[in-house]
């Protein structure tokens, strides 16, 4: 076929199109993913019983602040990755900042405690539940996010997949925080940070298959 014929075909009766809405679509998908993640947490795990005590509220806010920081930076970068040739003006390394901050807080908290408590502070009571819950809860937010990114035009599929995984991991950690009763900074740094990194790696390996267009 002649390319000219294709040009004629594509430009015949061209519809006006609402453009520049990639960011909005992906943001809505992440919010939907977050609502689903919260519902899964409520039904499957339940909110921690002592949530009204001030100590629980303090640690819940800390965990949420960490998760929101991760999602906020990662989402901004993901939106940039979903549009060809787009520049966001932020470095992908910016996503390391929340992780570095929580790791530093964890180390300070360990330094402040007697070494006999370290094991307990890092491993906590529910490390296995955390290790399993965050990636499992992340599945649906990941799928919804990938669906939205696919409607755009990512061109670096490994990186776009990784950031979709990072966003989903952060969203999932946010939901899991309402259930989690392990209140120590080193625990949050290791298990929240670690599982979100796992989600990121899973996203990076799935990206090329799920996002190709």
């Amino acid at each position: 076929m002649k390319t000219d014929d294709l040009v004629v075909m594509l430009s015949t009766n061209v519809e006006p199109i609402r453009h520049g809405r990639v960011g909005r679509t992906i943001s809505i998908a992440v919010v939907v993913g977050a609502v689903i993640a919260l519902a899964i947490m409520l039904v499957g795990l339940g909110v921690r019983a002592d949530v009204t005590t001030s100590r629980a509220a303090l640690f819940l806010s800390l965990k949420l602040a960490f998760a929101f920081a991760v999602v906020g930076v990662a989402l901004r970068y993901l939106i940039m990755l979903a549009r060809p040739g787009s520049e966001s003006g932020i470095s992908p390394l910016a996503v390391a900042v929340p992780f570095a901050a929580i790791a530093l807080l964890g180390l300070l908290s360990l330094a402040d405690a007697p070494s006999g408590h370290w094991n307990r502070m890092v491993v906590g009571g529910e490390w296995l539940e955390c290790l399993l819950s965050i990636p499992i809860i992340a599945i649906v937010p990941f799928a919804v996010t990938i669906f939205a990114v696919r409607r755009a035009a990512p061109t670096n599929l490994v990186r776009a997949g990784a950031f979709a995984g990072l966003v989903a991991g952060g969203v999932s950690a946010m939901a899991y925080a309402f259930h989690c009763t392990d209140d120590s900074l080193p625990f949050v740094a290791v298990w929240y940070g670690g599982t979100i990194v796992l989600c990121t790696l899973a996203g990076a390996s799935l990206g090329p298959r799920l996002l190709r267009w």
Partner: protein
Amino acid sequence: MASEAELKALMAASLDGDAASYRTLLDRLSRRLRAYYKGKLARIGRSATEAEDLVQEVLLAVHLKRHTYDTRELFTPWVHTIARYKLIDYLRRTRSAASVPIDEGAEIMAQDDNADAESSHDVRKLLERLPEKMRCAIERVKLEGRSVAEAAVLCGISESGVKINIHRGLQSLAAFIAQVDQK
């Protein structure tokens, strides 16, 4: 030689539904893409027909992904990133060991090739492989130039159904073209 500003203005008008601007834009892009792909593929011993396949794939991609262009940003990097993505995807698909040389965004603007070659596929034949509603919607609106309202009556579906079927049909066509290349 069209400049960034000129192409960008054409794209903005196209997104607003200006068919004449869109035709001019796609025509200019196809010349640039042709020069770009011929140069890239000739270096690794591929034919002009393959370059033309890629030109058509990218024109379809530009059409299907045009909502991802933000008019506040430059237009050339947007097209160039898509062109480069489709080249790498094509070479991977056709199992080439050749590496794609890293190139500059300016390169796609540098040349103009108007020698329209035939691509290896026939869109009319590919259209026949589409489900009836998609084929009907594309033929009435995009080939015969009828309005969406007319097509809705002729194809027996709603107006929004016509639009959706055109979009999905073009997506399927792009997928068919990619499959043809694989053989």
